[in-house]
């Protein structure tokens, strides 16, 4: 088995152990193909309380779309999670997360049907994602949220994520970036950047700080 196979096996194993099976009583997690996931996600957007973003596709020509697809093909597929939250035969939520560069994992989106929101599904789901991603060997998890989406910001901040950035995007407007460092040293360096703490430990670890 080569290094790439090892990484995939470790990722798949962590996914199976943390992101499949019972989530809360009556709701299970199962993995889905990209097409199946997308179909459910689109349906769930329509019934969730979150305002879906404007569809930008009308702005792009066929040529634009082809170029975009071509860039993705240059690099090949990334590690990704496409997970469905199922209450019996019904899909009541979906989750998508994906590998990015530099050991970073991006929680792209989670959508939960409106009538099952506020019942702790996301709070129960979050530590499972963190466990799967940590075990797969990533250094950092990040996500982007509407700046007024307290329903997601609060559980994530409670779970140890930190506000790391603000961004204005054409599609989503004002976003807050949340990050969770899965490597202690990086977490300490982040705190050091915020308030100067941990300087002695970081110097002892070999960092030359001003």
């Amino acid at each position: 088995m080569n290094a790439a196979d090892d990484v995939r096996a470790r990722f798949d194993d962590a996914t199976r152990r943390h992101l499949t099976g019972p989530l809360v009583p009556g709701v299970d997690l199962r993995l889905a193909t990209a097409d199946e996931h997308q179909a459910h996600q689109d349906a769930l957007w329509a019934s969730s309380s979150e305002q879906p973003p404007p569809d930008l596709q009308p702005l792009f020509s066929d040529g634009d779309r082809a170029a975009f697809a071509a860039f993705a093909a240059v690099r090949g597929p990334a590690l990704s999670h496409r997970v469905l939250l199922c209450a019996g035969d019904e899909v009541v939520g979906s989750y998508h997360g994906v590998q990015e560069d530099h050991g970073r994992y991006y929680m792209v989106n989670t959508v939960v049907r409106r009538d099952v929101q506020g019942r702790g599904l996301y709070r129960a789901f979050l530590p499972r994602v963190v466990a799967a991603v940590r075990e797969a060997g990533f250094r950092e998890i990040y996500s982007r949220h509407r700046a007024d989406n307290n329903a997601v910001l609060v559980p994530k901040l409670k779970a140890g994520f930190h506000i790391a950035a603000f961004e204005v995007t054409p599609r989503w407007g004002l976003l807050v970036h949340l990050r969770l460092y899965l490597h202690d040293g990086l977490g300490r360096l982040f705190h050091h950047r915020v308030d100067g703490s941990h300087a002695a430990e970081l110097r002892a670890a070999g960092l030359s700080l001003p």
Partner: protein
Amino acid sequence: MPPDDVRALFDDATRRHLLGELAPGVAIRAAPADEHEAHEDRLWATATDRRPPDSSRLFGDGDRARVRAIDGLRGAGLEHRLLFCAGDDVVGTFRGAQGERGTYVMWNTVVRRDLQRRGLYRAFLPRLIAAVREVGFREIHSRHHADNNAVLVPKLRAGFVITGFEVSPRDGILVDLRVFLHDGLGKLFAHLIDGSHAAELRAAGVALP
């Protein structure tokens, strides 16, 4: 478009816009990763007194190997590694690469201290934008120390806009800059700032609130 065609388009745009004379006495040439990195390291040592801490010291061998393996799963992206040469002397370096979702990231540009503020960066920027635009990227993204006016000013003059702020463990407080290479995206960004372009965007089919 097959990946090989995208690479050919990228290489062609690089040759036409980025290689050759940049300013009188300074030419640009492409370099392999090792050569580029050696020059970049050497130039960092003299280009600034404020190098970021070497955060790689935080990581053990196992951690480095694991992240290298994870990153290695995805094939190499499109990338520029360029040297600015005054005769035989390498006086500057540039590295930029394909990012996520149709974005091109300008990772860093280093110019030897005695050649800074002579217009090299100002001359380079429009050439890079032309090359990246021609390949079909939707936007160029870069991050800078919030007090690095020497770079922020020429970029803002070249049409980049401030799109975010970030706290980075390695680099501290950063400003995110972007230039949108697709008109519609640029208009939508401006719309989110001040409500402009609403009629054009609706006419193009974007459902705005």
